[in-house]
């Protein structure tokens, strides 16, 4: 009890500890704000990639794809653990608007809109058919031509806050898509002077996934049309990937294990068939591994930022060290008296560590509260700065970011606060130990007093 009483007394009586608290509060404030925004950006990016991919993806590394997928898709659809299964055609093509010269290379993805919406977040990214994705490829201009869903950034320019101003109905646009169809051996499916396949599609909707490469470089076509254009329907039907969503209550590990086992059996069953060699390029991956190449750089930046803050945090440890060194320097007589009446060395150490803990708790509480308040208002502040000074943290016409992430992640804050308290204890440890092991006979001799 006396330890707590003494630590509390030192905490309230020594004004110098306000400096240590200020150092901790400043550091915690900055780290809470920056890490919350950074973590928000990374989580948001991950979530968008998860939504784009589904929970699990069976995919081929080659554009040639793989065959014998229909039985497997039916088998998966019969399983309770999978609530969405979508076979997908992937490839590259050249898009041109008839009558216009500009043509751009983009990624083509052939999907069944209902199946793909069940397996991924595709349906939610649509603008006009969010509630009825089955009509995503129904165009209102030329019913004889197939529809297409194009990345929103290809046909619209984003506004100051990343928003896109849509017309009440899809824009009357036609896209001429050209691609190189490949045969099952990887060669050009069409010989002669024209090895390409070209078809016109009508704009029926646009997709806003929040992923730059998808919104600015992808067009979705009806599955059958894409399979036909890439000549992946003959002599044997092929696809490039199968996207799977697990039912609620099924963990990612459990679902992945089941899919991997089913796929291994499927490959075994078909290993002697023609084109079974195409299975060699196929992998079964969860969404995170599937998009790892895109997600990893952002995670690395987050790690780098954490390391930089940790380095700067050392200064806070130094501040606490010096403050406690000063405080203990002034409390030598108290320490001597305590030691002389029987208080053990480690008890003295614990008094000062308790004191340091209080400084850490109060400093980090102030910093964390200020950080949370700042986060709550961060978008309002940015709006105000934009309205008055046309200043934005990120120009939304360049970066695919909506609002600045401002969610208060209590786990993150708990870790930061714990680190701050740890830093306070670390900084105070050496002075506390020095205090604890002072010899009363030296401290209380008359020339010291």
């Amino acid at each position, binding site marked *: 009890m006396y330890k707590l009483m003494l630590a509390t007394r030192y905490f309230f009586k020594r004004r110098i500890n306000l400096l240590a608290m200020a*150092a901790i509060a400043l550091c915690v404030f900055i780290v809470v704000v920056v890490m919350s925004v950074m973590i928000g950006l990374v989580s948001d990016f991950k979530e968008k990639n998860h939504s784009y991919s589904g929970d699990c993806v069976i995919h081929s590394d080659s554009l040639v794809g793989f065959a014998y997928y229909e039985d497997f898709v039916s088998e998966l659809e019969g399983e309770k653990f999978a609530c969405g299964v979508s076979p997908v055609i992937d490839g590259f093509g050249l898009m041109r608007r008839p009558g216009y010269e500009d043509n751009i290379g983009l990624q083509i993805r052939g999907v069944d809109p209902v199946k793909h919406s069940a397996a991924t977040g595709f349906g939610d990214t649509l603008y006009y058919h969010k509630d009825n994705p089955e009509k995503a490829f129904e165009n209102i201009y030329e019913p004889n031509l197939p529809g297409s869903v194009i990345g929103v950034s290809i046909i619209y320019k984003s506004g100051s806050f990343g928003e896109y101003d849509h017309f009440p109905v899809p824009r009357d646009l036609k896209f001429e898509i050209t691609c190189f169809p490949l045969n099952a051996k990887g060669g050009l499916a069409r010989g002669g002077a024209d090895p390409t396949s070209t078809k016109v599609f009508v704009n029926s909707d646009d997709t806003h996934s929040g992923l730059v490469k998808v919104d600015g470089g992808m067009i979705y076509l009806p599955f059958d049309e894409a399979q036909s254009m890439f000549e992946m329907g003959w002599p044997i039907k092929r696809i490039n990937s199968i996207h799977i969503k697990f039912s609620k209550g099924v963990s990612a590990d459990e679902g992945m294990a089941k899919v991997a086992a089913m796929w291994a059996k499927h490959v075994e069953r078909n290993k002697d068939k023609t084109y079974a060699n195409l299975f060699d390029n196929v992998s079964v991956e969860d969404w995170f591994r599937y998009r790892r190449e895109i997600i990893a750089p952002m995670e690395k930046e987050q790690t780098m930022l954490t390391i930089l803050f940790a380095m700067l945090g050392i200064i806070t440890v130094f*501040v606490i060290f010096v403050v406690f060194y000063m405080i203990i320097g002034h409390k030598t007589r108290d320490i001597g008296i305590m030691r002389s009446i029987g208080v053990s060395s480690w008890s003295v150490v614990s008094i000062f560590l308790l004191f340091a803990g209080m400084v850490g708790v109060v400093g980090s509480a102030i910093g964390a509260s200020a950080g949370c308040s700042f986060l709550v208002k961060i978008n309002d502040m940015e709006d105000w700065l934009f309205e008055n000074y046309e200043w934005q*943290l990120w120009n939304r016409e360049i970066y695919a970011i909506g609002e600045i992430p401002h969610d208060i992640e209590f786990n993150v804050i708990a870790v930061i606060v714990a680190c701050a308290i740890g830093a306070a204890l670390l900084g105070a440890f050496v002075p506390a130990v020095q205090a604890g092991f002072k010899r009363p006979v030296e401290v209380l001799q008359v020339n010291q007093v």
Partner: protein
Amino acid sequence: MKHLSFFLCFKYLCRKKIVLLSIASVAMCCGLLIVVSSLFSGFIAAVENSASENMGDVVIDPYGSMRVPDYDELISELEKVDVVEAATAVLSSNGGLLFLGKGNVRAVLLWGIEVGRRDAVSPFSKYLVGSGGVDIGDEVAVGYVGIGVVAKPDAVTDEYDYDEVGEFVGRKVRLTTAVSGSDKPRRITFHIADISQTGVHQFDSNFVYMPIEELSEQLYPGKGKIADMIQIKLVGGADEEAAVDKIRGVWREFGKKKKLDWASPLDVETSRLKQARLIGEYRKQMGMLMLIFGVVSGGVILLIFCIFYLIVMTKIKDIAIIKSCGLGSSGVAVLFVFFGLVVGVAGSGFGILIGWLMTKNINAVEAWVSSALGLNLWKSSTYMFSRIPNVVYWDYVYWIAGAAIVAAALGALVPAIAASRVRPVRILRYE
């Protein structure tokens, strides 16, 4: 006597080992800020330079899809301008689809270039990997392909396998693209003469180059030599704005002579200006990062304050003795502030050294981290360039060092005032 007091006081300060802590803190913050500012500035400069290096200093880029006829004539007119060192024509196709081999199709961008004249504007030959040696023959069409189009760098080392890359040289590939005035795509077959590696991800992973004469004939048969962009290199030290004015004059005259109604002065722009918006965003991000680290580094002021206050408290008797020997209050205060400045100078000096060493060897550090921890921090696909810029930007260094010295002096100010207010008669009395 005053000089002796000054000497004694300085000696006391120098003997306090805890001062080293403040020097170390200043050095660490200073070094960190120098590394961050140099790397970020280097990155921004690399973006700007890559545009100049690959597109020339000034570009005539007609709006829309307008084509420049008889570009040789325009180039010879441009080369008469005193600020123009060289100019070259480019014919671009916005997009193409390249079939490289079995199961290997890539979306690419296509440029027709003057192979001979291009080197005067952009070091095209220097970028070629030189994995040629395959006799292609003069009769067939040739092209140059970006290294990232034919291969992927190693996931850990970010290095290309040049043996794998070399296998593409001499290979016959097919490309399809579209042109204005025709609904049918154009198909071009050519042999890969060499592989280009500029070190800029955008060019390496997307671009295919062909001789402009060949590409003009393939895309616009019978229309002669046409280009849709003229890239211009200025003589060293030329004022870009004045140069743009002169080039606009030549462009206007050329437009009149050739009856190009669409030719506009706005077609002429510096390549830096073309990137200005993006560069502005990068600068803003850098400013934010420096501000955040700067605020956190402000903790150094607190640290120096605490250390100097500690010195004042522990050396209060010595200060009293020195004052009693004749050193005035202001002298004591000046001494402490001066010592704060010394700490700032020493700390920032070490910081500059640390920052300089780190920045200069950043590629070696990154390579070591990659090999030791298997963690590839820098990837050209993420950060645009294959090498981390390692130039120290001294403009920032001066500012950072100056701020560190001022911060140290500020930290020492309050303890200096406390020291100056020490009254020898109270401190030195016997009881």
